[in-house]
């Protein structure tokens, strides 16, 4: 906990800016993809217990659809793009034009799933490349993994690296929402840097204490 307690407000601002740049880029990509206006909130940086991470999306039991990837390179970490299942369905329908795509009809339409996977890939890729350009830190995404299950089961996987060192996570959370009359989609970007990555990010941006 010592490292987290010692973060200055300046360093927290830097982390917010990181979230801003990454998710801003992803929101632009999404807006092009949907050909609609996509809004995003100012990112928030939270120092939270593992249980509180689950609460950010409605509790550990809550069913979520998530694209998860590991960030590889100089500043490793985990990244999630999280949607509620009905929002993910809407999302797929808009991107693919499939009218009846649903997670409840088995077998789930392969094309729809593949589209969702690809969207996750594009969004997280654009998030990361902006981050990498800004910080000049080499970061590459792993192949993303698409999953629908309980939030606790999915998100705890992104906490494993952190859990070796800490009982808390610094999570950079940005909410994106699509601005539409008929339907709107809300999603979360969660960026969870591994403990040693913070030092590298701060060093790269010249804000070491």
């Amino acid at each position, binding site marked *: 906990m010592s490292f987290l307690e010692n973060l200055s407000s300046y360093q927290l601002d830097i982390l917010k800016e990181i979230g801003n740049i990454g998710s801003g880029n992803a929101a632009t990509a999404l807006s092009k993809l949907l050909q609609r206006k996509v809004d995003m909130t100012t990112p928030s940086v939270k120092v939270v217990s593992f249980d509180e991470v689950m609460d950010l999306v409605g509790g*550990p039991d809550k069913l979520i659809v998530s694209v998860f990837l590991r960030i590889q390179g100089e500043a490793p970490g985990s990244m999630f793009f999280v949607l509620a299942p009905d929002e993910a369905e809407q999302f797929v329908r808009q991107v693919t034009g499939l009218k009846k795509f649903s997670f409840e009809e088995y077998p789930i339409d392969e094309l729809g799933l593949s589209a969702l996977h690809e969207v996750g890939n594009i969004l997280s890729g654009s998030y990361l490349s902006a981050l990498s350009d800004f910080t000049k830190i080499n970061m590459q995404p792993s192949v993303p993994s698409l999953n629908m299950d309980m939030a*606790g*089961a999915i998100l705890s996987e992104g906490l*494993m690296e952190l859990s*070796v060192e800490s009982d808390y996570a610094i999570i950079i959370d940005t909410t994106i929402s699509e601005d539409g009359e008929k339907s709107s989609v809300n999603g979360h970007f969660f960026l969870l840097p591994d403990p040693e990555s913070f030092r590298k990010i701060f060093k790269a941006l010249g804000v070491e204490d």
Partner: protein
Amino acid sequence: MSMTSNVVKVGIADLKITRAPEILRTSGLGSCVGVVVFDHSQRIAGMSHVMLPDSHLSKRDDLNEMKYADTAIDLLIDSLLHDGARAYALKAKIAGGAQMFSFSTSNDLLRVGHRNIEAVKQRLSHHRIPIIAEDVGGNSGRTIEFFPDTGILKVRTVNMGEKEI
């Protein structure tokens, strides 16, 4: 007995002891393992939400004993005995340890589910506590509830509904 039992929630890397009619619940187990140790005739049970296999993984001095299979199970047993359970009567049920993502990677932490199961079994066997039921592995998240009065463990998954073990 009242129809609505009190639910004692067990968080991540957390551990709780309770007696009937209260029930124990932990939600959204992925690669983590839920370990229940109980003395049925005394109606007392403890549940632990284990996150990592081995406390030697810790890079800290002040480690959270409830997080690791080895330390959490020791603590679970100590607490149960302290609260009146009898060592010879203790039995265990376990659930969890899924592999949520199919990464082909050299990163051990992403295959932690399997290692958690092994570590939990090893530690319970070290204490000579029999595992009388288990629902482990696979690739689904689980929510579990234990009823100390019946000794039943309810396991709920998103795709395969609910079962009792």
